[in-house]
């Protein structure tokens, strides 16, 4: 078993998350639904609160001091994000409300304009609905073909990538870390292959940016999207990164105030990057909170966060793999690239019943199709339960999770 000490001082980290102290069903909370949304540390709550307490003003358009302070903070938040993922400055970072909005902006702003009949759009078989459904729309509206990179037990091989991408590929959109298996797509290879045939690449980083060090220079993708609320940030925050040249030529997806430079009755010109992609008053407090969240993660070190999660996951997996009544999906615990997500089913219990019974023991997990219905069909299961770990989870919590499964086994024995 993986008994080495965690690279994080987890007890200290936990003090920043007061919600961890609450009880659920008269039991102390074990929060293992981190892939859905993460808990929020005090420094982030403070950053959001201090915006409302100290500089509650609109941005970009005020002559007064408070508006200027808010604008500065909000714009600086873009710099923090750029630094966090290795982008080339704030011009390449537009704030969105979540990953889904980021994908839609690329699919409709870039995809509809550039994908044509006879082209193909390549996705993996394990895309989240938020990346699958927008590209289905682009395919239907342009007459392009949708193609899928085969996934074997959550693993995407280079050969499977080679089989899907060809001369007619115009767009490739792949999930970086799977929200079902925790496996890692070889995005560097995907980007290289796609660029060889002149295609553009979008990487869905919803499960990678919060959990693994991301460097866009290494990945080499054209677009990258993620959600703030899964990375210790406030709900209603997200990020769209795009290569500057692409964002410059790309059409905005939403139109209106704030995203213009000059408007006449019949036409308008767009604002500079990245504001051309942020129509209307943005989520100012959220953006400031998101930047604080990423600074918090950066202070701990993403390598450490990742290592901590990997150890917990390996530990829990090893315990589950010994259990004939638990079916775990995805590669085994020895598999190299596996982040903090475990999908499973227990005996002949339905995932809803499993998660409900785990909840009665204070353990919060998710159940259902995890916004990957076609993948569930492919796996031949109606649904799974999912436990996902983050930086504040402990080995004791992993134990409580594994032991709570006994209740499910008892009921469904």
């Amino acid at each position: 078993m993986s008994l080495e000490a965690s690279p994080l001082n987890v007890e200290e980290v936990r003090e920043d998350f007061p919600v961890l102290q609450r009880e659920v069903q008269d039991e102390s909370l074990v929060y293992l639904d981190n892939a859905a949304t993460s808990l929020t540390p005090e420094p982030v709550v403070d950053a959001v609160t201090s915006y409302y307490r100290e500089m509650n003003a609109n941005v970009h358009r005020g002559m007064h001091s408070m508006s200027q302070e808010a604008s500065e903070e909000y714009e600086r938040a873009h710099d923090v994000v750029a630094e966090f993922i290795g982008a080339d400055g704030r011009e390449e970072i537009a704030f969105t409300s979540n990953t889904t909005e980021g994908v839609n902006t690329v699919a409709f702003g870039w995809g509809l304009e550039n994908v044509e009949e006879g082209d193909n759009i390549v996705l993996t078989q394990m895309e989240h609905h938020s990346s699958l459904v927008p590209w289905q729309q682009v395919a239907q509206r342009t007459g392009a073909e949708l193609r899928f990179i085969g996934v074997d037990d959550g693993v995407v091989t280079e050969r499977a990538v080679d089989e899907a991408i060809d001369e007619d590929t115009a767009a490739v959109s792949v999930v970086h870390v799977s929200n079902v298996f925790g496996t890692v797509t070889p995005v560097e290879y995907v980007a290289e292959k796609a660029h060889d045939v002149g295609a553009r690449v979008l990487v869905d980083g919803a499960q990678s940016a919060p959990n693994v060090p991301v460097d866009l220079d290494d990945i080499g993708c054209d677009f990258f999207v993620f959600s703030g609320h899964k990375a210790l940030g406030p709900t209603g925050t997200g990020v769209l990164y795009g290569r500057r040249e692409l964002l410059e030529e790309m059409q905005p997806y939403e139109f209106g105030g704030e995203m213009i430079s000059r408007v006449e009755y019949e036409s308008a010109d767009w604002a500079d990057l990245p504001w051309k992609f942020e129509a209307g008053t943005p989520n100012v407090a959220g953006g400031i909170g998101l930047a604080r969240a990423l600074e918090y993660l950066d202070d701990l070190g993403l390598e450490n966060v990742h290592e901590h999660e990997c150890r917990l996951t390996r530990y829990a997996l090893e315990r589950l793999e010994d259990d004939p009544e638990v079916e775990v999906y995805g590669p085994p615990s020895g598999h190299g690239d596996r982040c903090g997500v475990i999908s499973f089913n227990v005996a002949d219990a339905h995932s809803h019943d499993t998660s409900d019974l785990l909840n009665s023991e204070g353990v919060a997990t998710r159940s259902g199709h995890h916004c990957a219905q076609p993948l569930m069909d492919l796996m031949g299961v109606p649904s799974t339960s999912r436990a996902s770990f983050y930086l504040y989870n402990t080995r004791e919590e992993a134990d409580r999770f594994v032991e709570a499964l006994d209740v499910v086994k008892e009921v469904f024995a």
Partner: protein
Amino acid sequence: MSRDMYRQRILDHYRNPQNYGELEDADVYYMDDNPSCGDEIEMYAVVEDEEVVDVKFDGKGCAISMASASLLTDKVVGMSLDEVREMETEDVQEMLGIDLSPARVKCAVLGLKVLEGGIVEYEAEGA
């Protein structure tokens, strides 16, 4: 505690549902799902003189949705279409004999929702 929901009767109906399968020559047929979990139920019913005389269901789901659909098929035989359409969440709860957490009410009423959907469609066609 949700553990209390999993009474033996519920589990028996989950493992061995009553009236499970397809019904040929059904007058009423309808299928629907619970979008939050993907659970799917199909309901078949034979109607004579505005009364349910036979009913079967098919589908996959959690213990609560399966047990509820199974119990429902027992209950509705002999009821008039109007009586079935007037059934409410409380009736389902009473039929199950357990307290449902808000998150599970949707599971419990899926079967009824599907059967009622079928009846509405049947009546619209007959009209």
